[in-house]
Each structure stands twice: as structure tokens, then as C-alpha cells.
């Protein structure tokens, strides 16, 4: 059973996480420079989020625009990843995290996500999602 009881809960937590990222000036400046937009497709439960510095954070498949990078993973994988229990190279190498888009852009994106890693445990805990 997923740590997320519903799609709504997953959407609330992950959209909060990316709202935090869009409050980070460094991230926004670099995302604009790189033309970076990210589509996150979560499964079990299903939850889709579209993030861009222009459009902010949008929830739902119908809200997604064309994204430079698409990440696909289960909600449990996302939780483990953001909590720091599952490392990015392991998630990628084992196929638990699958990414489509220019790999060069992905490689640049990962270090920019540091603020999200730092804040996620508090965001998840505030939503009642256990460690």
C-alpha cells in the first residue's frame, strides 16, 4: 500500500514541494535561462504535476503543457527519493525513476533540486505522511 492514501494527498504534497522550488530565486533564474519545464507523472496513486517558471505549478493531466523533461515514478519512489532514502543514480539505474528529455538538461536539473530535498521531510510530515 502506498504511503499516499489518495491522488489528492499526493498532489497536495508534491505541488507544495514544487511551489517551494519556484520560490527559490536561483532555481527560477536558471530554469528560465534553460527553458526548463518539468512534467511529473506519478503512479500508485496517479498524480500528474506540471512545473514551469512561467506557469507555476499546475495539477492534473489536462493542465500539462509540452515539457522539456518528463519524470515518471510511483508515489512511493518519489517519497523515498525526496526523503533522501533512495539516491538518484540508484533510482535511475534500477528504472524506478524514468526520465524523458534531453539528458544534458536532466543532469543540470538534479543539483538545482537541492532546496526541494531540504524541505520535503517537513512538507510530508505536515501532510501527515510518515517517514
Amino acid at each position, binding site marked *: 500500500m502506498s504511503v499516499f492514501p489518495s491522488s489528492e494527498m499526493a498532489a497536495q504534497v508534491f505541488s507544495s514541494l514544487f511551489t517551494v522550488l519556484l520560490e527559490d530565486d536561483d532555481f527560477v533564474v536558471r530554469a528560465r535561462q534553460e527553458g526548463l519545464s518539468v512534467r511529473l507523472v506519478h503512479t500508485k496513486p496517479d498524480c500528474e504535476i506540471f512545473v514551469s517558471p512561467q506557469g507555476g505549478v499546475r495539477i492534473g493531466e489536462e493542465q500539462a503543457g509540452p515539457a522539456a523533461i518528463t519524470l*515518471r515514478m510511483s508515489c512511493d519512489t518519489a517519497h523515498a527519493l525526496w526523503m533522501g532514502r533512495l*539516491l*538518484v*543514480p*540508484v533510482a*535511475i*539505474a*534500477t*528504472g524506478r*525513476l*524514468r*526520465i*524523458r*528529455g*534531453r*539528458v*544534458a538538461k*536532466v*543532469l*543540470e536539473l*538534479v*543539483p538545482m533540486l*537541492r532546496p526541494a530535498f531540504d524541505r520535503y521531510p517537513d512538507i510530508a510530515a505536515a501532510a501527515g505522511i510518515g517517514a
Partner: protein
Amino acid sequence: MNTALSESVSETALNFDVLPSGVEQFRKSAQEFARNVVEPRVQDLDQKPAAHFDWDLVGHGHRIGLTRAAIPKEYGGLGVGMLGVATALEEVAAVCPGTALIFGATLLGQAPILLSGDPRLQARFLPLFSGDEPVLACNAVTEEDAGCDLIIPSQAEHARNVTTARRDGDHYVLTGRKRFITNAEVAAFASVFATMEGSRGATGLTSFIVPLDLPGVVRGPVADKMGYRVCLGSELEFHGVRVPAEYMIGAEGEGMAINMAQSNMARAAVAGISTGVARSALERAIAWCGERVQGGRRLKDQQFTAAKLAGMAAKVDAARMLYLRAADKVDNELPPPVYEPATAKLFADRTAIDVAETALSLLGARGYLRSYGVEKTMRDALGTRIYEGTPEVLALAITDSLYAGGDEW
């Protein structure tokens, strides 16, 4: 042409003649490097003692970016992706695959750092490649008793005498010996795979970045090889080498998956090397058959020879198409795909051997002479099957993909 129609054509047409501008620029500079720097010295280097290494040659390649082609621009690299690496290495390999492999092996050593997503590791190691002096890396997997067992997950438990790693405070201690490691003699660091002490076979395989100036690292001896003599393959021993824990890639026991990911990433590029080997043989055969007259006609005008040349050309083109597709997929997918790079390398390796053998026969007695170059191409072609996946390993990877079903996207 009707505007709407031309728009719809441009949206759907594949363009086989135009590479992205940055990739094309890099390919051309690699071609110039191969023709102007490598070609004049390649015959001499091929006959040097096994341990001879031409740092000046590497320096020229370094200056055009061959040591940092896949590294992101923010760390001083060219950021041309695997498409850039593969097309450039085809150009270099068409003159000397051993030279191409020096840079290909460096990419392989860099790959775990690129895949790590760890900004500290990336900032520590990747800028090394953008200095004034050339820096090389290597990938240390193969051992005396374990080769394929370290890259086929189902065989991992049967691996014997694998290099071990043991956690000791904020370090790991590595003990063991690697064999046939390209660039080990000259690399600044190695991507090393060691199994956690106490685990069965290689089931605890873990990936580390190991600076080769650490105490306890011993390099050599250099293997005296049949081909690829310009690059050095040697042993690498680890006598209780203490590696900082932060130099581990991923997690303990996840080395097999990381090794496979980096292999899948690199196979498109090494397929480019094999294609370059085949192209070299084809070009020599075309030149010879265009001037040699037998029975009152040039060889190229004789039906039996024409059929051979046509078959060689088709194979070289097909090999190139396969590696371009693989490289493009690798540049746009994570984890790197299994199927396309494996099929590209399997086909390109076979093509290198077939085309070199046919070229050798077309040149007759001259093909057997060192001075005509095809003899070296034949020796090099046979080496393509050994590194980054033998035909047998590639066949298993391809067949697994055929039965795995497609990704959900």
C-alpha cells in the same frame, strides 16, 4: 511548395544528412584531428612497445574536447551528448581506433559521475577535464576470474574472487585486482566496481570513484595486445586502498545496475568506433578497387567485386544508422536504453570484422602487408568484440529486451 504542406513535411520528416550544429562542428574538428595529428604517426605508434603512450597525441585530442565531450557545459565540458561523442569517435576510429578508445574509455570512467546526480562529486572530478593538460579516466570492472559475471545480473552470484570493499568509518577499504583495464596505466581516477565483503559472488557489487594516486593503488603491467596498441590496457591492484565514503556512487550493492546503466550509455559511442573501423577498411577497398586493373578492367567494374563493395557500403551505412539511433535515445532517456545501444554495438562489431576481412581479400597480397593499413584494421576489428560487451553478452541483453515488453509512456 504549399506552406501548410511544407510545414507538415518538416514536422514529420527525418533528416539523415544534418546533425545538430554543435555535434557537426565537433565531428569536423575530430576529423581534422584524426587526419592531421593521428594519421601521420599511427603506423609508427602501432609498432612501438606495448607500454609506449603518446601524451602529445592525447593533448591534441584534449584541446578539441575529446576528453570532456559528454560533460555538461557548467563543468567545463562540451555538452554534445552521446551523439557528439559517437560521431566524433567514428572519425577518429576511421584513422586509429586505439586513439578513439583512449577517449571512449575516459567517457566510461566519467559516466558514473555523470549519472550520480551528486553535485559534490561532479564538482570534484568533472572540472579536471577542462584544464590545460589532458586528464584521462578509466572503468575498472573485469578481473582474472570474473568478466561477464560482473555485467550479467543472473550470473552475479557465481562470480569468483571479486575485488572487495569493506566499510571502515568514513572510508571504504578496497582490496583486489582488475585486469584488461583500458587507460589504467595513465588515468587520474578509475570507476571501480567492488563487491561488499561477505556478499555472495558479485551480488554486493558497488561503484566507487577511486583517484589512482591513493596509497595502495598499483598499476600495470601493460598487456601486449594484438590491436588497439595506441591505448594501454593494464592491471590495476588495490592493496587496502582507503576511499572516502562520499566517492561511492549510489548505494552499497547497487553497482551492477549502475554498471549496466553506464554500459548502455557508452555502447552507442563504442559502436561509433566499430563503424569507424569498418569505414576505414571500406575506404581502402574503394581506393584500391578503383585503380587496380585486372583482365582489362578495374576491379570495381567487375561484377563480383562490385557486389562485395556494395555489401560493405550497405553494412557501414546500416551500422552508422543504428548507432545514431542509439545515441539519440541515450541522449533523451534515463535510464539509458538497453536495446538500441546493444543492437548498434552487436551489428557494428560484426560489420567491422566482415568489412575488414573483405577489404583484406580484395587487396590480395597487399592486404597482408603492414604498409597498406588493412592488416592493422583487421587486427583492430577483432578487438571490437571484446570491450563493452561481447556478442554473447549483447545477445542476452537484446533478447531480454525483446521479451520484456515496452515501457509505459
